[in-house]
């Protein structure tokens, strides 16, 4: 009986001074699906997910999660409801070990269960392929591995909605393949909202695509719909398929 959409936004808007980063964005996120949010640089994608997660305060509009209005909840409360967020600009605990980074992500839910915590950390690290770097200091990891650690921190929370802001940026081709495999495995377990410039990743993982352009929602639909959409081709696909 769960509603089809796990998350909706209504009239969500953000202005930075005179810049309208998001204008009246109405959006629906289908439960259990992988939805890709695409759009040219500066389209407002990060701003949008920032407002959804509570990291950025909306100028106007509503965010509904499981039917409840969460527009006025601070970020940490939204995360507690089951939203996980990974940053476009890598944000990890650079001075702490890799395993402690993941443990911090998982510990909020498993604070009283040290054994379950260790198990979760071990399995998440194994899943993303960072097991042999568990005791390394996170700041010493390569850029690509830091991106992967960021994803691991999201996974460790076993979120209901997993928001990923350009997770494959800066990853090597083989790591991108691993990422695609990971997202496919997660599909069905959780709902994923994926901001992505790499069209190969989008086409190989997304069930649904939403296109943002100059702060407005240009189109939403299945990959086939989007490919066929003339507006989208004009605004985005035609110019950036090779990006």
């Amino acid at each position, binding site marked *: 009986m769960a509603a089809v959409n796990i998350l909706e936004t209504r009239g969500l808007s953000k202005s930075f001074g005179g810049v309208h980063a998001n204008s009246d964005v109405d959006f629906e996120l289908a439960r259990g699906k992988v939805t890709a949010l695409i759009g040219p640089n500066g389209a407002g994608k990060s701003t949008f997910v920032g407002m959804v997660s509570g990291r950025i305060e909306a100028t106007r509009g509503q965010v509904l999660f499981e039917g409840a209005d969460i527009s006025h909840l601070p970020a940490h409360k939204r995360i*507690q409801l089951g939203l996980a967020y990974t940053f476009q600009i890598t944000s990890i605990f650079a001075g702490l070990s890799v395993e402690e980074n993941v443990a911090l992500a998982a510990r909020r839910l498993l604070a009283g269960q040290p054994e379950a915590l260790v198990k979760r950390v071990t399995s998440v690290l194994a899943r993303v392929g960072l097991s042999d770097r568990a005791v390394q200091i996170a700041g010493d990891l390569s850029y690509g591995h830091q991106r992967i650690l960021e994803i691991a921190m999201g996974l460790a929370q076993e979120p209901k909605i997993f928001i990923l802001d350009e997770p494959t940026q800066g990853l090597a081709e083989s790591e991108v393949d691993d990422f695609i495999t990971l997202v496919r495995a997660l599909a069905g377990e959780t709902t994923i909202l994926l901001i992505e410039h790499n069209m190969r990743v989008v086409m190989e993982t997304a069930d649904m695509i939403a296109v943002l352009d100059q702060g407005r929602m240009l189109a939403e639909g299945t990959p086939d719909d989007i490919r066929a959409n003339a507006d989208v081709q004009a605004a985005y696909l035609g110019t950036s398929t090779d990006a």
Partner: protein
Amino acid sequence: MTDNSKSNLMHIGVLVVLFALFFILPVYHAGNMSRIMVLAVYAMGFNLLFGYTGLLSLGHAMFFAAGMYGFGLTTNLGGLPVPLAFGFGVICAGVLALVVGFLALRTIGVAFMIVTLMFAQTAYLVVLYFGTYTRGDEGFVIQQAQRSIAGIDLTSETGRYFTALLIFGICFLLIARLVQTPFGKTLVAIRENEERTRMLGYDSHRHKLKILVISGLFSGVAGATYALLFGYVGATFATVQYSIFPLVWVLLGGAGTTIGPLIGVFFMFYLINISSGFTDAYMLVVGVVLVLLTLFAPHGLAGLLRKKVLTWLP
């Protein structure tokens, strides 16, 4: 042996050494150690906020003084029995920390430093303003008759040393435990990257308020103990200088380590003690040593140890 049991062993070991020192050290140095242990409690309280959570308060003297005056005034003027007066002093410090935290934690970074500094300055002025009771800069002495608990004379060197050790030991072990809890680890996360911590679903503001109160409580314990053991309460302890001391101790000893504060207080105490025996310009010596340490051991003495040999140091 796991890191955890090594760490437990280290903490117990430190207490055993401190216990044994009393029987080894000449009386004069045992007296110094009593003082060092009490001040180390203050430094440990400060370290929770600064070393573990990354919040630099420049007004911690107000919490030390709150404990000191809360205890001293109620036992001297109010005639409250020592344990009650002691508890009252500690609560004063905790309540003050709650109020200060409520207001000051709206700010971050330099603004937080300035706001705490101003609160402490206000507290200092309050002490002077109520000079009728506090006797201002001159301070007051706590009567010898009031300085005993359960028949133990706290003016004797023995009574003093072991009371200091008992209180230090309790605080030391409590803090060692605290920083290993999920709460303690979240504090470190806040220090490392507050926004990330928040975006993992932790209420960072609440954590900061809690640890400020806890830090204030430990500082208050130190202040009340100081008055109890050394029998003197004065406005000097509410001055800016006493807000800067814990920062220097903790930086010297090693911020964010459980043992650092004790090392820092010990080192600084004897640095001043010894250099002032040689020269009147002992503060110059202290300054030079501080600069050298910051250059060669930026994470303090315990930080240096942790890096070189004892990687498991908590």
